[in-house]
């Protein structure tokens, strides 16, 4: 097959490109302390929260954006971004789906997320973030009965201030990095989950993030806490409407797992990647970190990343507790002009800690992708073990894959294994499938899905199906 044919094969239009016209109460572009006070006031936050934000902002002012990533994008003008946009009538929030703006529901329908059906059929509680304010929270009562708190971070600041004060910023400090500091200053919403001691969350928790209002950066803040022996599985999925402007997204996710607790965090991300020239895609600068604070605790990150023009994302685990476990399973697909610098960090501090990293990168078109992974074993982490497997698959000959593994081993009893492969999607594999009568497009899907299988099987069932479908759409083309 020629390169040109390959290119055709991986062309596709973004399927979720549309805009819902809902009157927004939007701040004019610009960022200063007044902006932050406005946001904090809008959210009805207590004084301590405003102080916390301002402290982050003042630190952010002294910081510079990171330049080490294998990414190429023009400097971002932070004064050109609007930092608050809420759907109309924020004080008069709908109490049920019947009260929700039908246009909003229509938007979800177009995305294939019939919220009510989905929630009811799948038994999944959905905290949907539309622009910056949580609009709908379902199954809250059932969760509360089990003792699980699942609400927006804004609500949590009002209703569970002690928990928020104790844990917010305890995993990702305000000045952790440039984008985390910005997020800490201006975050508008996100999810909060608290699972008390000994409780296994009775359902999988899911949030759909969307970016809608023009030029509005989304700054989500998610905090999940599992007390001793508690367990939760959290699903996050995203799509966004087609846009011409680059949209900045700088989320922070913090996970805290105490003794014997288990947090599974799964993401399917499909943000607008830009057109074939890379114009208009989402810039996604995310800080995700889990803290295995308790002994024998476990945090597992699974991600399927297919969207965004720029992805800068390293879901990480700090393995503090003795015998704690960190896992990272990732599929990242870049196509067209997409760029991704993604990977993970596993910081082994406690004795007997273990980590597993399985990263599958697929590059097509003119996309560039880098895996960046750090494994750090501290002097106290006796008997720590890490296994890293990092595979790249190239489709066509104009894309790139790069691997940057960093290992710092401060302990002679540690065992660290690293395996890396880069392969071109086999012309031989394609020929083999086609010589069995399977169409070229189906063959590519089959081979790519096979390549990603180790990761897909870590996803919750309904997400795995979605992920496969998404991958097929991502690599869909005009064959024949």
């Amino acid at each position, binding site marked *: *097959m020629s390169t040109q044919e390959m290119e055709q094969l991986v062309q596709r239009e973004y399927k979720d490109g549309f805009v819902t016209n809902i009157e927004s109460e939007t701040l004019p572009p610009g960022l200063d302390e007044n902006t932050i006070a406005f946001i904090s006031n809008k959210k009805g936050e207590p004084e301590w929260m405003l102080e916390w934000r301002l402290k982050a902002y003042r630190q952010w002012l002294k910081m510079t954006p990171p330049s080490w990533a294998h990414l190429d994008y023009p400097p971002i003008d932070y004064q050109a971004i609007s930092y608050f946009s809420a759907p109309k009538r924020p004080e008069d929030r709908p109490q049920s789906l019947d009260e929700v703006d039908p246009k909003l529901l229509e938007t979800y329908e177009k995305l294939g997320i019939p919220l009510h059906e989905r929630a009811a059929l799948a038994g999944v509680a959905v905290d949907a973030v539309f622009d910056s304010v949580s609009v709908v929270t379902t199954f809250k009562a059932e969760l509360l009965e089990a003792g699980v708190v699942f609400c927006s971070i804004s609500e949590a600041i009002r209703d569970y201030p002690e928990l928020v004060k104790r844990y917010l910023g305890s995993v990702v400090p305000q000045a952790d990095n440039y984008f985390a500091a910005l997020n800490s200053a201006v975050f508008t919403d996100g999810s909060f989950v608290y699972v008390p001691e000994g409780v296994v969350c009775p359902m999988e928790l899911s949030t759909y993030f969307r970016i809608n209002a023009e030029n509005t950066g989304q700054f989500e803040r998610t905090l999940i806490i599992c007390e001793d022996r508690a367990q939760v599985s959290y699903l996050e999925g995203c799509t966004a409407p087609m846009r011409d402007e680059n949209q900045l997204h700088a989320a922070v996710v913090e996970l805290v797992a105490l003794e014997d607790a288990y947090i599974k965090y799964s993401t399917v991300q499909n943000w607008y990647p830009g057109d074939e020239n890379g114009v208009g895609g989402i810039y996604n600068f995310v800080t995700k970190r889990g803290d295995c604070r308790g002994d024998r605790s476990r945090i597992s990150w699974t991600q399927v990343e297919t969207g965004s023009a720029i992805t800068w994302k390293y879901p990480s685990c700090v393995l503090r507790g003795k015998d704690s476990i960190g896992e990272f399973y990732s599929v990242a697909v870049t196509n067209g002009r997409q760029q991704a610098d993604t990977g993970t960090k596993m910081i082994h501090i406690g004795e007997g800690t273990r980590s597993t990293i399985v990263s599958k990168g697929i590059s097509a078109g003119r996309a560039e992708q880098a895996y960046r992974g750090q494994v750090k074993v501290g002097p106290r982490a006796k008997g720590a073990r890490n296994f890293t497997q990092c595979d790249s698959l190239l489709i066509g000959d104009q894309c790139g894959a790069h691997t940057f593994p960093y290992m710092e081993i401060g302990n002679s009893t540690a065992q660290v294994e690293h395996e890396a492969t880069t392969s071109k999607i*086999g*012309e*031989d*594999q394609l*020929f*083999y*499938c*086609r*010589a*069995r*009568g*399977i*169409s*070229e497009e*189906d063959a590519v899907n*089959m*081979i790519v*899905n*096979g*390549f*990603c*299988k*180790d990761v897909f099987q870590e996803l919750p069932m309904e997400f795995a199906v979605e992920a496969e479908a998404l991958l097929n759409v991502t690599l869909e083309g005009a064959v*024949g």
Partner: protein
Amino acid sequence: MLEVKDLHVSVDGNEILKGLSLTINAGEVHAIMGPNGSGKSTLSSVIAGKEDYEITSGSVTFDGKDVLAMDIEERARAGLLLGFQYPVEIPGVKNIYLLKAALNAKREALGLGEMPAPEFMKLIKEKIAAMKMDASFLQRAVNEGFSGGEKKRNEILQMIVLEPRLAMLDEIDSGLDIDAMKVVADGVNSLRSEERSMLLVTHYQRLLDYIVPDRVHVLVDGRIAKSGDAELARELEVRGYDWVLEESAA
């Protein structure tokens, strides 16, 4: 059924096939033999549609249709199926999934719907037993970690499931011990029928003791230098290829 006329094929400017002609009628089994580098595998690959070959002149027709104008998958769906000398591994793709996709692609081309799952499972169970393969093969990734013999059996399994009209088997005997070869040969023989033809590409005569061909062709330097019946294969086993080379040079 298959008609190859004066076929000239080059790779990177080197001519591999230099005017090859061959006719295979329905129900016939033809064997292509010849020394290494004579172009044996090129012939079946070109018929199956492998790219990287430049066809400079000549024609290939199958039931009167121009094969060279068809896509790879169209050829397969029309019933031209290649059994590979070196079947590739496809990690993460279950064998049964490939079989199902291939069978349904063919059914779709024939205007039939997808085969219902119970019917498919019944069919596969029957065929896998015929190949003396363990059912666990179906759940393993395509050819991944298979031994040489297992890969070849798997090729024949695909053949007996997909039931091609012309099966082209490229060195299906290479790397097989005698027991495995018997199983493979039994599989191939079970496919023999009035309507189905075969093209066996082989280096050794051994296979032809088990699958007795109607016609044997010796390929030398990109052309068929000599044709005969099964007896010719035995003669080649005894005398080697040199005499054919000398004869054709003369």
